[in-house]
C-alpha cells in the first residue's frame, strides 16, 4: 500500500487511490467542482490543482494516482495560486446573480469563491449568456450559470443509465443540453440538482419559494417504495418546501428517485382532508373529532354486535407506519375480526398457507451491487424501485449477468444477458422451463416439482437463463411487484424458490411499498380482501385504485353499511364512506417503516398536522378506548413501536423468510388471446404521489394514461396508433389513447392499473380486448 506525505502528514492509502482520496482520508479539503465520489473522473474544472514535489506543473488531485513516497502540498503558495487562478477564470463568465439564484447559500461556487476568489473581477469584457433548456416539469435551468463540470452529464450516463444530457459545441460555446430538444425523462433526474455545484440546475417546483438558510432540516424516511430512502425534509412555517437525500450508503447512497424527491408537493395539496366529516344523506358535514369518532365507533359497534366481529374488515395501505398498522390490527382483533389486509393489489393468496415467514429482499440492499447473476421476475424495475434498478445497473457494469422474465422488454438502461418476454399467463410455464433446463443440466429439484416437468418443452431463452444461473457466484432471483400481484403469484414464488435452491441463488421479494415488510410483521394480512363485510375501516387506502379488482371492491364498499376512512385526502372515498377522519401523512407524525431488507427506520414529525388532522396512531388509540379495549394506553409512537416489535430490529431478522412449500403447479401452456399487463405506474403508487402536481406532468405520468401495444398487434387489429380505443375486460371498459411500443409481445396490451382512467377495469391481468371507438 503506497505511502504519501500530504501537507506534512504521512498516511498509507489504498492502491489506486488518488490524491483527492488521500486528502479526504487525511481530513484535508481540496477545493473541487467536477470531482464526485460516485462519478467517473473528468478532471475538467482544474480547481483541485495541488503542488506535487518533482512535478513541474500543479497536478489535479482528483485525477492523479498516489505513487509511493509522493510529497504533496495542497495549500502551498504554488497550489493556492493555481486554485485562485482557476477560480478567477470560472467566475469571469459567471453571472454572479446570487441574489436571485436558488442555489445561493448552498452553492459550491459561491462558497469556494469566498475563499479563493478576488473581491473584484479583472474581466471587463462582455459575459456569456446561454439559452435556457426545457428539461421538463422537475428541473429548472439557468444555463448561463453552468461551469461545465459535466457532473450532470456523467450522472445521466453512469448512474441513471441513459445519456439524456450532453455537452455540445466547443470552447467557450460549450453547452449542456438534452439530446435533440428532449426533456429529461429519467426517474432519477432530480439528482442532477444536488450534483450541480452551481445554480444552473435547480428544482422547478421549489423555485423561488424559500432561501436555504430559512429552511429547517428534518430527517425522515421515504414513504413510497420498498427501499426506504433516507430523506431530509426542508421546512419553513410548518410546511415542507422540498425534499433532498439524506445520505445512507447502505440504502439510497446519496441519491433519491424523483418520486421520493417531488411527492412532497402533495403534502400541501388542496385535497388534504383537514376536518373530520360525517355523511348526512347526500351531504357531508364537518364535525368535531369527538362527534366523528363516536359516530364511527357507534356504527361499527352495532355491526359487530349484530353480525359478529368478522362482519368488520380493515384495509390498510402498506405506506402507513408500523405503529399505525399495529394499532389497526390490534383494534380489529380486539373487535373480534380477523380480516385485516394490506395487499390490496394482490390477486393470489393461495401461497399464504404454504409459507411461514415475512417475505423480504433476501439480502441486504447493498449486496445487490455485488451480484454476479440475477433473474428478475415480473419487475418493471425502473418504475417500481428506481434506485434498485440503479444498483443492478452498477452490478451489470461490473460484469453481472442480468436475466429477465417479463411481459414487456423494457429498457433497463443496462445490458440484459437473456430474456423471456411472454404474456403473464405464460410465466409459470416459462419458469418451469428454466427449472427443467437446470434439471437437465444436473441440478436437483424438489421431488414434488421434478415429477411435474415431464411435458415441459424448454425454449432456448429458458435454457440460456438456466445456463447463466448455473455459473458464477452471488446470485439472486428477484420477484417484482408484477409477479407479486400476478394471478398465479404463489406458483411463481414456488418455482422461483425451487430454481433458487437448485442453482444456489438467493430468493428475494422487491417489496413494493415502504412498509410492506412492516405490515407483514405486525400481522396486517389475513388473506383475500373481504368483499362481504358489513363495516369497513380504511387506513390510508384508495380502494378503487389500490385494489387488484377495483370495481369489485368498490361495489362491496358501496354495499357495506358503514365505511370509516382514516385518510389524509378527500377523493373518491367521499363517494362511499360514512365517516372520514383526517390523518397526518408521514411528514406530520412520528413513525417507522421496515424496508425490503428488514431495516427498521423511525422518524419524527417534521411539521405539525394540517388543520385538525391527527396522527393515525392516536386516532386508532382513541378508537380502542371508545370500544373499551384493553391495551390502548400508549402515549407516544415509540411506545407503540415498542409493543409492536419488542425486540426492535433484532427481532425482525428471525422472522424474515421467503421459503414456500407445496404449492400445486398448473403447468398447461397458456391459451391464445390478448392479455392485459396491468402495472401500478411509477407516479400512481400511493395517495401522495397521485397528488404531486409536478410528477403528474412528467412523461411517465402521461404514458400511464395510454394503452400500449406492439405495432404488429395494432396492425392486426386494424387500429391506429395515437387514436383513442375502447378496451374491454370482463364486462368493464375504458377509453384510452392507443400507443405503440414494439417492446411488447404481440399478445399483450399494457394498460396501467391504479389509474383513474382504468379504475373501471376488473383485474390487472387476464383476457382483454381492444377496438376502435
Amino acid at each position, binding site marked *: 500500500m503506497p505511502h504519501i506525505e500530504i501537507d506534512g502528514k504521512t498516511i498509507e492509502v489504498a492502491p489506486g487511490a488518488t490524491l483527492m482520496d488521500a486528502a479526504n482520508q487525511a481530513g484535508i479539503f481540496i477545493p473541487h467542482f467536477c470531482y464526485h465520489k460516485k462519478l467517473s473522473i473528468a*478532471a*475538467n*474544472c*482544474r*480547481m483541485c*490543482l495541488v503542488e506535487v514535489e518533482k512535478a*513541474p*506543473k*500543479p497536478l489535479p488531485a482528483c485525477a492523479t494516482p498516489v505513487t509511493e513516497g509522493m510529497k504533496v502540498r495542497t495549500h502551498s503558495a504554488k497550489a493556492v495560486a*493555481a486554485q485562485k*487562478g*482557476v477560480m*478567477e*477564470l*470560472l467566475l*469571469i*463568465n459567471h453571472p454572479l446573480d446570487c441574489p436571485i439564484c436558488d442555489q445561493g447559500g448552498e452553492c459550491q461556487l459561491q462558497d469556494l469563491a469566498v475563499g479563493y476568489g478576488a473581491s473584484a473581477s*479583472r*474581466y471587463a*469584457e*462582455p459575459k456569456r449568456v446561454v439559452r435556457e433548456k426545457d428539461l421538463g416539469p422537475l428541473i429548472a435551468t439557468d444555463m448561463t450559470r453552468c*461551469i*461545465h463540470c459535466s457532473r450532470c452529464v456523467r450522472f445521466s450516463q453512469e448512474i441513471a443509465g441513459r445519456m439524456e444530457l450532453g*455537452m455540445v*459545441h*466547443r*470552447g*467557450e*460555446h*460549450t453547452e449542456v443540453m438534452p439530446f435533440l430538444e428532449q426533456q429529461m425523462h429519467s426517474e432519477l433526474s432530480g439528482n442532477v440538482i444536488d450534483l450541480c455545484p452551481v445554480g444552473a440546475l435547480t428544482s422547478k417546483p421549489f423555485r423561488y419559494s424559500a432561501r436555504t438558510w430559512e429552511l429547517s432540516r428534518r430527517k425522515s424516511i421515504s414513504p413510497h417504495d420498498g427501499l426506504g430512502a433516507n430523506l431530509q425534509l426542508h421546512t419553513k412555517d410548518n410546511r415542507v418546501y422540498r425534499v433532498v437525500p439524506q445520505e445512507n450508503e447502505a440504502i439510497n447512497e446519496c441519491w433519491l428517485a424523483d418520486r421520493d424527491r417531488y411527492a412532497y408537493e402533495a403534502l400541501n395539496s388542496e385535497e388534504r382532508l383537514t376536518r373530520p366529516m360525517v355523511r348526512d344523506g347526500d351531504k357531508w358535514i364537518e364535525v368535531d373529532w369527538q362527534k366523528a369518532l363516536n359516530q364511527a365507533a357507534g356504527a361499527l359497534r352495532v355491526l359487530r354486535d349484530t353480525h359478529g366481529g368478522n362482519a368488520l374488515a380493515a384495509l390498510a395501505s402498506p405506506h402507513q407506519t408500523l405503529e399505525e398498522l399495529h394499532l389497526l390490527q390490534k383494534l380489529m382483533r380486539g373487535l373480534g375480526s380477523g380480516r385485516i389486509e394490506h395487499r390490496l393489489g394482490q390477486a393470489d393468496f393461495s401461497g399464504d398457507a404454504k409459507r411461514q415467514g415475512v417475505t423480504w429482499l433476501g439480502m441486504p440492499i447493498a449486496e445487490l451491487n455485488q451480484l454476479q447473476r440475477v433473474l428478475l421476475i415480473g419487475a418493471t424495475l425502473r418504475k417500481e424501485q428506481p434506485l434498485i434498478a440503479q444498483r443492478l445497473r452498477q452490478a451489470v457494469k461490473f460484469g453481472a449477468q442480468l436475466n429477465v422474465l417479463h411481459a414487456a422488454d423494457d429498457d433497463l438502461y443496462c445490458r440484459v444477458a437473456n430474456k423471456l418476454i411472454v404474456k403473464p399467463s405464460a410465466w409459470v410455464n416459462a419458469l418451469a422451463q428454466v427449472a427443467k433446463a437446470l434439471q437437465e443440466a444436473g441440478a436437483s429439484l424438489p421431488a414434488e416439482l421434478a415429477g411435474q416437468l415431464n411435458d415441459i418443452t424448454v425454449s432456448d431463452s429458458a435454457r440460456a437463463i438456466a445456463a447463466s444461473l448455473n455459473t458464477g457466484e452471488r446470485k439472486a432471483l428477484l420477484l417484482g411487484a408484477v409477479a407479486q400481484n400476478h394471478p398465479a403469484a404463489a406458483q411463481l414464488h414456488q418455482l422461483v424458490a425451487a430454481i433458487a435452491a437448485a442453482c444456489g441463488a438467493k430468493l428475494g421479494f422487491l417489496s413494493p411499498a415502504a412498509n410492506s415488510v412492516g405490515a407483514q410483521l405486525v400481522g396486517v394480512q389475513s388473506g383475500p380482501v373481504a368483499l362481504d363485510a358489513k363495516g369497513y375501516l380504511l387506513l390510508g387506502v384508495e380502494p378503487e385504485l389500490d385494489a387488484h379488482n377495483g370495481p369489485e371492491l368498490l361495489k362491496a364498499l358501496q354495499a357495506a353499511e358503514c365505511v370509516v376512512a382514516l385518510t389524509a385526502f378527500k377523493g373518491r372515498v367521499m363517494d362511499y364512506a360514512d365517516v372520514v377522519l383526517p390523518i397526518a401523512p408521514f411528514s406530520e407524525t412520528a413513525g417507522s417503516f421496515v424496508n425490503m431488507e428488514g431495516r427498521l427506520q423511525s422518524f419524527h414529525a417534521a411539521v405539525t398536522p394540517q388543520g385538525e388532522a391527527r396522527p393515525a396512531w392516536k386516532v386508532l388509540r382513541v378508537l380502542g378506548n371508545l370500544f373499551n379495549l384493553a391495551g390502548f394506553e400508549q402515549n407516544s409512537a415509540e411506545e407503540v413501536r415498542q409493543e409492536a416489535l419488542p425486540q426492535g430490529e433484532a427481532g425482525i431478522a428471525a422472522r424474515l423468510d421467503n421459503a414456500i412449500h407445496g404449492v400445486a403447479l398448473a403447468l398447461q401452456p397458456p391459451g391464445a388471446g390478448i392479455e392485459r399487463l396491468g402495472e401500478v405506474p411509477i407516479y400512481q403508487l400511493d395517495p401522495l404521489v397521485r397528488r404531486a402536481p409536478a410528477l403528474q406532468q412528467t412523461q411517465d405520468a402521461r404514458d400511464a394514461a395510454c394503452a400500449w401495444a406492439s405495432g404488429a398487434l395494432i396492425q392486426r387489429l386494424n387500429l391506429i396508433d395515437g387514436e383513442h380505443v375502447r378496451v374491454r375486460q370482463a364486462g368493464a371498459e375504458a377509453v384510452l389513447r392507443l400507443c405503440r411500443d414494439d417492446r411488447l409481445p404481440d399478445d399483450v396490451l399494457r394498460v396501467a392499473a391504479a389509474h383513474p382512467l382504468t379504475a373501471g377495469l376488473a383485474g390487472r391481468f387476464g383476457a382483454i380486448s381492444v377496438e376502435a371507438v
Partner: protein
Amino acid sequence: MRHGGQAFLELGKPNNGGTKIFSVSGHVNKPGNYEVGLGTPFAELLAMAGGVRSGHKLKAVIPGGSSAPVLPGEVMMDLTMDFDSIAKAGSMLGSGAVIVMDDSVCMVKALERLAYFYFEESCGQCTPCREGTGWMYRVVHRIEHGEGRPEDLDLLMSVGDNIAGRTICALGDAAVGPVQSFIKHFRQEFEYHIEHKKCLVGA
C-alpha cells in the same frame, strides 16, 4: 535509407540529428517546404525561401508553428534551425512551420489573429482554456481596435500565467505562447496602440 541510420543522423548536428522539413510561409519570396539538416542557420533557410519580400525588412519569426513563441528577426538571424538553439532563445522548433513576418506586419493584429485561432479551437473541456482563451482574445481585439487600456498588457501576461500549465491538454500552453511572447518582444508596439489608438506600423 540506403545509407543507414548513422548517415542520416550525421546530416544534422550533435543531439539534433537528421533533417527536418521546414514549411516556410509568410513574407518570403518563395514560400514552401524545405528539407535541410538540423542546425542549418536560419539565414540560409530564409535564403532558400527566396528571402524577405523586396523593399521590406525581416521583423519577426515564429519558428515552430503558431503556438511557438515569436522571436524578433534579428535574434533569428543569429540562430540555427535545431531544437536546442531555438529553445535556448526562448521558443521552440515545434512543427517546423516557420512563419516569417516583415516590417509591414502589425504585431497587435498578428496576435489578434493568433489569439482568435486558439479561442476558436479550444475544445472547452477544462476551465482555464475554455474561459481564458476568450478573455485573451477579447483583450487583444480591444487593443487592436483602439480600445486598449494601459493595464491590459500586464493583465494579458497574468491571465496567461493562469492558463499555462493548468489545462488538461497542451492547447492552453499553446494559446499562451504567442500572447506572452508578442508582448515580451514587441511591448512598445502594443503600448503605442493603446496610447494612440492606432497602429505604429502604418503611422
